[in-house]
């Protein structure tokens, strides 16, 4: 792909901070989210969920519920088409349990009724007979040979023989001679870590409104990170043709990866099909915690060798992740990301995924990476402490850079890690004095970033304005960034552009909003679509002027004659060309569709100061600074917003957030009261430093920025707390009881 790779170009719109196009709707309460719409004749549905961690469904008797006045439809797993594809079958089995319930909160039956109260009353009339089975919720316990088997026959061919049936996959990455590497080390530290499952914690519960008519056509409104993915999953589940299901993405009240799949959408469609009326489902917060996307929980061993002068000689990590009751490939990404920040001669990572009786893992911001990098960055910090070395200097000494063979295989292109570390070193935060009882922590972080399938249409209106139609729900301000890139490329003001997000029938496929892909991929497609429209506008101008279209260039929002014709005609602006478009061949639109690559990996470095109350184990975050390479920050405010938001999610993960299971295998804290996300008063200002090391894969140098910021906080906090209390912490979250216990052990 030939790219106009001119990173030093002077931007007019990109890099500025215009108001976001959805701003007024969102500050006035007018923006419509998943639960904010209704339809004539609409029914409300609720879902009966398993009270058991693991049980066989012996029988389901819905007769009394169906007989209740106002109940219009009842569905169970039998109402969905069986799937050949394992991945799809798992998604569906997670939406509605088939033969066994696999975790506390697993959906069993859904009821649609004329109102919420009747639907809830109907759930109480349903008799489900369960045969309780032994359960396992801990990843290490699940990997033992005598552990209850969550699902049989799910191990991939990659799993070594002799392991528990709960182990579904195994991966190994790395290069070099580990033994030789450890031989060269002056100090070797080996330590084991655990991290709790955490939830994305979006404030908007899943919600949808489905309407299917007797001729098999259906419309679905839902909050999702990917309407096309919802369309594909739901049409398969319902045995429909994709074209018959139109999915419209509502405004989305947070996703962070957790809204990249379906939970209630196929259920609402099945209920609507049965009842012949629109059906709305809105999850309660309790349901969100019990039945939707937590991260993996993990147990990790890391061993790293270092010479006295701070050179890492070898690194090894064994990662055991559980993505809940279904197979999950997240450990692959953790195992690849673990040592990505380092230039190593010898490195090996082994990963295993094990089934447990927990909800099915859903992606959460850089899935798999925070856990692995937490463990590695903790051991690097401990080595620095043991050897009396500066942790930033050690990272600089070992930093991956352009030409480094990465720990997961590929050789890095231009990357910003060294620049990011240098920026941290030069920042006043790094040299600010610390008081007694305080500690400073540092961690690097990494994420791959993705491109993916993308489709954009750019319509030039006759009044000289432009509509961009794209297909990725805006979770962090992407409509603003895309409008900026369209304005930049076309050479017209930002406020002449309106970017909207299409439903599935209005635009070709777009991959979900994930992998930090949207500003990169949709932006790139928008630039290409603008170039397509520009070519057409130049051609129209050439026609008008009666010159060869090759002799027309686009400059500052206008066509200009060039070459031998230069100066012969005054430039014709986009508005002027658009105004006569009906006379020159019809409407003008640019399109681009592609499978984007070249996303460019992302690195960040976080610095944090904490103070620990040694009598209570409470940690106070005093100062926090995020350094990250954004390639080119299209809208710096929203880049900062990603850096700050990701950092705070990571702070929550490090200090207080966790899924807590009781002996009975049931989730103990399915609410915001006891699942403790950070509140405003917990936090200091989050300072940000954006580095711009252009991504060679994008004409403006853009890199994805959304995921990397959640990676470093786990180790940064753990390193800061460990230094503050003089004891190495190795388990997340570092809740006050854990810190006090560590202190008492000394």
């Amino acid at each position, binding site marked *: 792909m030939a790219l106009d790779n001119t990173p030093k170009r002077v931007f007019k719109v990109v890099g500025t901070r215009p108001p976001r196009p959805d701003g007024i709707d969102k500050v006035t309460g007018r923006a419509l989210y998943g639960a904010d719409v209704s339809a004539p004749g609409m029914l409300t549905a609720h879902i009966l969920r398993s009270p058991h961690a693991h049980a066989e469904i012996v029988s389901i008797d819905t007769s009394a519920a169906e007989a209740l006045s106002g109940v219009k439809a009842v569905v169970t797993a039998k109402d969905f088409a069986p799937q050949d594809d394992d991945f799809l079958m798992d998604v569906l089995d997670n939406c509605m349990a088939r033969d066994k319930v696999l975790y506390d909160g697993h959906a069993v039956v859904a009821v649609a009724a004329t109102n919420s109260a009747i639907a809830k009353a109907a759930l109480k009339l349903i008799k489900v007979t369960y045969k309780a089975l032994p359960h396992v919720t801990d990843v290490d316990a699940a990997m033992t040979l005598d552990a209850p088997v969550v699902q049989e026959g799910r191990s991939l061919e990659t799993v070594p023989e002799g392991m528990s049936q709960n182990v579904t996959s195994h991966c190994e990455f790395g290069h070099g001679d580990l033994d030789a590497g450890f031989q060269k080390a002056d100090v070797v530290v080996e330590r084991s870590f655990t991290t709790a499952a955490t939830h994305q914690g979006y404030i908007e519960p899943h919600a949808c409104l489905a309407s299917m008519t007797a001729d098999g056509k259906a419309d679905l409104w839902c909050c999702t990170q990917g309407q096309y993915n919802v369309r594909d999953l739901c049409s398969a589940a319902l045995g429909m043709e994709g074209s018959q299901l139109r999915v419209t993405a509502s405004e989305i009240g947070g996703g962070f990866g957790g809204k990249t799949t379906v939970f209630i959408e196929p259920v609402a469609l099945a209920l609507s099909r049965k009842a012949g009326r629109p059906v709305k489902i809105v999850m309660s917060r309790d349901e969100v915690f019990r039945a939707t996307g937590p991260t993996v929980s993990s147990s990790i061993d890391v061993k790293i060798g270092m010479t006295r002068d701070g050179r890492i000689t070898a690194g090894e990590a064994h990662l055991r992740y559980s993505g809940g009751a279904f197979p999950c490939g997240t450990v692959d990404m953790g195992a690849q990301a673990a040592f990505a920040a380092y230039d190593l001669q010898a490195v090996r990572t082994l990963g295993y995924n094990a089934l447990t009786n927990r909800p099915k893992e859903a992606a959460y911001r850089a899935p798999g990476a925070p856990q692995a990098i937490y463990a590695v960055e903790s051991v690097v910090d401990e080595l620095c402490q043991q050897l009396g070395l500066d942790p930033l200097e050690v990272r600089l000494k070992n930093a991956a850079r352009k030409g480094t063979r990465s720990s997961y295989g590929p050789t890095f292109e231009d990357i910003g890690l060294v620049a990011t570390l240098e920026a941290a070193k030069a920042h006043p935060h790094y040299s600010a004095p610390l008081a007694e009882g305080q500690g400073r922590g540092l961690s690097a972080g990494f994420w791959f970033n993705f491109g993916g399938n993308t489709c954009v249409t750019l319509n030039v209106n006759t009044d000289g304005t432009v509509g961009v139609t794209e297909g990725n729900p805006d979770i962090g301000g992407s409509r603003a960034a895309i409008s900026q890139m369209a304005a930049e490329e076309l050479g017209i003001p930002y406020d002449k552009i309106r970017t909207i997000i299409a439903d599935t029938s209005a635009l070709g496929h777009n991959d979900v909003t994930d992998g930090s892909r949207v500003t990169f991929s949709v932006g790139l497609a928008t630039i290409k679509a603008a170039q397509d429209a520009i070519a057409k506008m130049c051609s129209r101008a050439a026609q008008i002027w009666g010159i060869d279209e090759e002799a027309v260039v686009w400059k500052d929002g206008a066509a200009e004659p060039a070459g031998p014709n230069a100066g012969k005609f005054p430039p014709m602006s986009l508005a002027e060309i658009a105004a006569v478009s009906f006379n020159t061949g019809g409407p003008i639109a640019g399109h681009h569709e592609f499978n984007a690559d070249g996303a460019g990996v992302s690195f960040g470095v976080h610095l944090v100061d904490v103070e620990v109350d040694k009598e209570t184990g409470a940690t106070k975050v005093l100062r926090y600074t995020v350094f990250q390479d954004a390639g080119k920050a299209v809208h710096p405010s929203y880049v900062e917003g990603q850096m700050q938001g990701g950092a705070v999610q990571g702070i929550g993960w490090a200090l207080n957030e966790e899924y807590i299971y009781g002996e009975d295998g049931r989730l103990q804290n399915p609410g915001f009261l006891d699942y403790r996300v950070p509140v405003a008063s917990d936090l200091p200002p989050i300072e940000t430093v954006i580095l711009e090391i252009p991504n060679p894969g994008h004409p403006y140098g853009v890199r994805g920025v959304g995921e990397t910021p959640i990676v470093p906080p786990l180790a940064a906090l753990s390193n800061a707390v460990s230094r503050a209390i003089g004891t190495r912490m190795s388990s997340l979250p570092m809740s006050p009881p854990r810190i*006090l216990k560590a202190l008492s052990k000394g």
Partner: protein
Amino acid sequence: MRFAQPRTTEEAAGLIAQEAGLTRILSGGTDVMVQLKSGLVEPDLIVDIKHIPGLRAITPEDGGFRIGAAVSGAELGEHEGVRALWPGVVEGVELIGSTQVQGRATMAGNLCNGSPAADAVPGLVAANAIARIMGPDGERDCPVAEIPVGPGKTTLAKAEFLTSIFLPARPDRSGDAYLRFIPRTEMDIAVAAAAVSLTLDAAGTVTAARVALGAVAPTIRLVPAAADAILGAKLDDAAIAALMEACSAACNPIDDKRGTIEFRTQVAGVLAKRAALIAYSRAGGTV
């Protein structure tokens, strides 16, 4: 379910007495509404007592204050008189929930909810506050300390409800304080809590003290041994150590999602120490 807004305490008492099914009193509603939402409680009658004259009033009485049962945390916090007399009680009430919850939640509701971790209650127990209770047979007074008997359980009879809480007058050189431990800075339920109320003589010696602990036993617990530990002392290190030991010894907590037995036991003593020092300073003492 029926919803009633009686205009007198007698009318309310009558409504409750006549209801054969389950009744819930609604003042701030911050617990009742959560119970309704969860579906665990399905009352037949909800009695909103906010419209009964006097129940939203704070009235000076015998040098102390009578706080109506429907006075919200925010309203109490804005009352300079109560703040000055019983700052520890007020700070306990103000720790219940968010700003939004403060706009509704009441001290009386917090007491009647029967939570061992209720933030308003240790301060009230330390203050030896007296609850006024309305029932089918009229009004009675009862020390706050005698109301909770276990998680979610109180000594109130089925048809009884609180109308006010009386915070008594106190001698010069008195002070109180309440501290709780939560993992975050806001929005959590207390994992351990301590309230201390004390009176000093002119020399700064503690002449009277009450110490109450929260979240470390099935009910809020008055700990006379802890009070004894500081009586006659000037909060010197030995007295503090004895106070902490007495508090930890009085703990009978559980392991749960909020904290461990070990943690609660240790932190209760720490909080009692810190609360005692604040109360001491508020009473005019200098350590």
